[in-house]
């Protein structure tokens, strides 16, 4: 059952400036909300601030000002240790470049977040194997990233992002390095996970054809929402 009645994420007046000789004011007061179970795309031209916004929302970077509220918890005030724990327990990440560790097999990579949550090794592997089957990589569980295609690596990254049942799955241009056929497979998978698991997904993309997979598009231009 899809439940899209409650806001899972509320963003208020978010600002981010990168210091330098000429400071770069990338986010200029961004505010929006996302409902639980929504599949949202953040779109915009290169340099519009969409990736920066995703990095702030996912606690990979610290905004200068503003609020990020997930559930009833305001996250910007959290300390580094609390943010680390929050990322582990409540968020999942899919990066453009897969971000898999070369020394870890698919099943080890997917089970890693559970191991970090102190689940027993055996249980972690069993759950990771099921998650790999969900992304149709059950037969590639013991392969290393170097033995897999780009699409397969990205599906491993998705399985890793989902293994801890995250409140929100963040995807930063997940298809940018993939051909159109493989991109379609990944986007279909996102859509399926969104529909079947009611998984909230926030995805940054600049491909207009990916709009058809999402519930809503947030357009950005020059650091503000359009």
């Amino acid at each position, binding site marked *: 059952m899809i439940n899209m009645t409650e806001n899972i994420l509320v963003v208020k007046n978010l600002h981010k400036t990168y210091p330098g000789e000429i400071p770069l004011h990338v986010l200029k007061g961004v505010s929006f909300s996302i409902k639980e179970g929504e599949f949202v795309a953040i779109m915009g031209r290169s340099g519009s601030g969409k990736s920066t916004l995703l*990095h702030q929302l996912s606690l*990979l*970077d610290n905004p200068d000002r503003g609020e990020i509220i997930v559930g009833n918890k305001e996250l910007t005030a959290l300390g*580094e*240790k609390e943010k*680390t*724990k*929050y*990322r*582990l*327990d409540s*968020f999942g*990440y899919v*990066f453009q470049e897969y*971000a*898999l*560790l*070369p*020394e*870890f097999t698919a099943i*080890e990579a997917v089970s*890693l*977040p559970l*191991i*970090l949550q*102190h689940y027993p090794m055996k249980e972690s592997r069993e759950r990771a194997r099921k998650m790999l089957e969900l992304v149709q990589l059950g037969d590639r569980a013991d392969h*290393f990233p170097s033995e897999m295609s780009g699409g397969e690596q990205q599906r491993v990254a998705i399985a*890793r992002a989902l293994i801890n049942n995250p409140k929100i799955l963040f995807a930063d241009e997940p298809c940018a390095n993939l051909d159109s056929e493989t991109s379609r497979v990944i986007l279909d998978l996102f859509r399926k996970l969104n529909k079947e698991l009611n998984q909230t997904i926030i995805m940054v993309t600049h491909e207009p054809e990916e709009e058809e997979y999402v519930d809503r598009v947030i357009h950005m231009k020059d650091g503000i929402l359009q």
Partner: protein
Amino acid sequence: MSKDFFIACWLSFKQTTRNNKKSVVMTILVVALLFINILFVSSMISGLISLVNGQLISYQYGNIVIEPNKDSANSIYIKQADKKLGEIRNVTGVVGAVKHYKSGALITFDHDKDGKDIKNGNWYLYSVEPSEEVKVLDMKSKIVAGRYLENGDRDKIVLGREISGDFGATFDMKSLGGAKPGDKVQVYYPNGISRKYEVAGIFATKNFLADAQAYVTNDEMEDILGQHDLADEIIVKTATTGDEDKYVLRIKNVVDEDLKYYPWSKYSGAMSTAITSFEFIKFIFYTIGLAVSGASIFIIIYINLLNQRKQIGILRAIGMKSKIIVTSYVIQAFFYGLMGVILGRFLMEYMILPYFIKHPFELPIGGVSLLIENRDTVRTILSMLAVSIVAGFIPSIQIVKKNILDSIFK
């Protein structure tokens, strides 16, 4: 904490065992070579010190020198020396004991037997009982020409190479200019007696002071001095070196005369200054070697870790605690350090040391082999492990303090 430590161990195990094998092997090999570098120089200097000390014991003083107590006794000799020798030889742990008469003497040599260009010099002449002497001092094995003395020899003398002036003598100017076995030398004693001796043999220990001595038999010397059953000194060889005080106490219990007892180290004289200098040089080399090795290990592990910056960023992004990451990289660095010192110790013990024992460095003072002292080994191992830990800790703590996005994308 224990679960986090287990995770750190698991992570470092996976990363180390699945890292590029060549890279792992090369890192361990370099650490091993650095370990050998430190230990090699200090072992060589220890070997040199050991050689010098060994020469003092083997060719001059044995382990203990017993002299008359000239302050409390009327005699300048040890009395009833033969009885005392018997008592000392029965002391547990005493390998042998011999008495010496010691006299200065003018030795002359007419090489061409024509009364011209007669070489001469003042030297120390010792008397020995040849059959017992070999149990205490090892001069017999250092004969390089002719033979050693035998019991009953009365007209024979054995010369050190510095007196002979041949066989690699280093102080030729003051020597007899090349006296060889079979040559006749004239010896003038302080009491006015003069004797002609045939050179029985030449010895060369490569210790200058030992090689500047000459030997005749006790029978001959007692005849010259007109004395009997006395001694200038008694030299004692013990089963172990370093326990001389213990043996002195045992000997004192059986010898009733008030004598002076000195361990060999008291006679090292100028050598002790040289040994102190060697020790200091060793300390300098050791410290520099440790600093260079420490810096090298640090750089190797640091570069290794910097190459894994992206991986560290990924681990942080998915929620791994910084302390797990740091611990895992410290464990990896410790592993490299540990494997390196184990390999280095193995190579040192089973390849380098046996080689240099078989093929010592031939220096003017003798063949110097390596002596690996446990103290140096333990200190080097601990130092290198400590450096490895620091080399793992500093870069990993720096990287986990960086912005996650910088670690992954820059």
